[in-house]
Structure formats: C-alpha cells, structure tokens
C-alpha cells in the first residue's frame, strides 16, 4: 500500500512481490513513453515535490475506500524518460475482478488530470514542446 515518486526506473515484478495477499484479483496498469510522430527522443516530466506525493497518496486511499481494496500501489517517475521507458504504474488488489479493474481505472483518471506533473516532448532534433492537457482526461473525472 502506498505511493512513490522517483526518477529511477521501477520493476513491476518487484513491486508485486507480496502484493495483495488474500486478494482474488490484481490489475496493473503501466504507462510507457510512446513516439507517435516518429521523431521523438524522450519525454521530460516535471513535478511539484511535496504536493505530488500527497496527491498520489490521496488517490490511492480514495480508491481503497471506494472499491474496498486489499492493497494498492502507485509509482510515478519524473525526469527525462526515453521512448519505450516506463512512466508510471498503478496496481489494485481486490477480492473481485470488477473492483480491481475499476480501482485501477479510477486511480488513472485522477492521475491524468489532478497529479501535478507536466510533460514535455523532446524531439530527436533537440526541440522541446509542452504536452497540452486533454479535455477528454478532464471529462473522464465526471464518471466517478
């Protein structure tokens, strides 16, 4: 149970060691740096130290309460992440499948537009461009 913000990579398998004992269902989501344009080198993530940890912890605790989770984990990286690198992961363990799926989805929706991260795409030519927030991510919160 818990949230972590870090620059270094994480190991999904290691994070799931002893995770969710007694659960019947574990759902994980892993976000990876994707290059849609074919000319991106990396994603650079800036965050708000202090506030970020608090926000992630709150999303996890809210999910735990709402979906009666047995265990949960949120890990989010910052810094320069090359194409193909892991950005973040959430994991949710519950007695039943639906709760585990919904909790992972819920944590992701909150992370997307309420966790203080800002992404910048770094091109292979060195140019940098801030990623705009999506209206659809904002609207996704209305589901909950």
């Amino acid at each position, binding site marked *: 149970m818990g949230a972590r913000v870090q620059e270094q990579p994480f190991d999904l398998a290691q994070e799931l060691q002893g995770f969710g004992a007694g659960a019947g269902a574990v759902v994980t989501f892993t*976000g990876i740096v994707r290059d849609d344009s074919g000319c991106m080198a990396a994603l650079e993530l*800036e965050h*708000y130290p*202090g*506030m970020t940890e*608090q926000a992630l912890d709150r999303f996890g605790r809210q999910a735990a309460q709402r979906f009666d989770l047995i265990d949960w984990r949120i890990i*989010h990286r910052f810094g320069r992440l090359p194409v193909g690198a892991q*950005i*973040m992961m959430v994991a949710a363990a519950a007695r039943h499948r639906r709760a585990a799926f919904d909790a992972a989805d819920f944590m*992701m929706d909150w*992370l*997307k*537009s*309420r*966790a*203080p*991260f*800002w*992404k*910048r795409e770094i091109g292979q030519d060195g140019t940098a461009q*801030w*990623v*705009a*927030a999506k209206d659809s*991510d*904002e609207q996704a919160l209305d589901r909950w």
Partner: protein
Amino acid sequence: MMIDVLYFAWLRERIGVPRERVETSAATVRDLVAELAARDDWHAAAFADLTAVRCAVDQELVDLDAALTDAREVAFFPPMTGG
C-alpha cells in the same frame, strides 16, 4: 504577509524563475495574480490567459477566488498531464 510563489512548466519558463518570495496583502489568489501580473512583461505574459492557469495554495488545488488567509506557498501551473 510573505508568500512563496512557485511556477511550473511554461509558467516557470515565461517568468524565468521557479520561485520567488513576495510581500502581499492580497485577499484572494485572483488579487495576488493581479499584483504579480503588474510586476513586468514576463509576469504579464504568463498570466495573460487565466483559463490556462491552475493554482494550488499550500499544495491543495484551489480556484482563483480562493482566500489567501494564512497561505505560505502558492503555486501556478498549466493544467496537469500526469499518468
């Protein structure tokens, strides 16, 4: 009162510093923004379109009409893009 003002992402880039300490008697975030925007062209540019600016007071998201009573840290940034 003295407040630490923090900037992130393109607000930080436009203003040119990640944080500054300001003496203010602003009652709300919106009042503080008006004071900051009046400082120089860079601040004015950063706050030109407030629909693109989000704010946290003492690390809690608030809207621009939130009171600043006892605030120690106010942060301005674009809409967040986590996950």
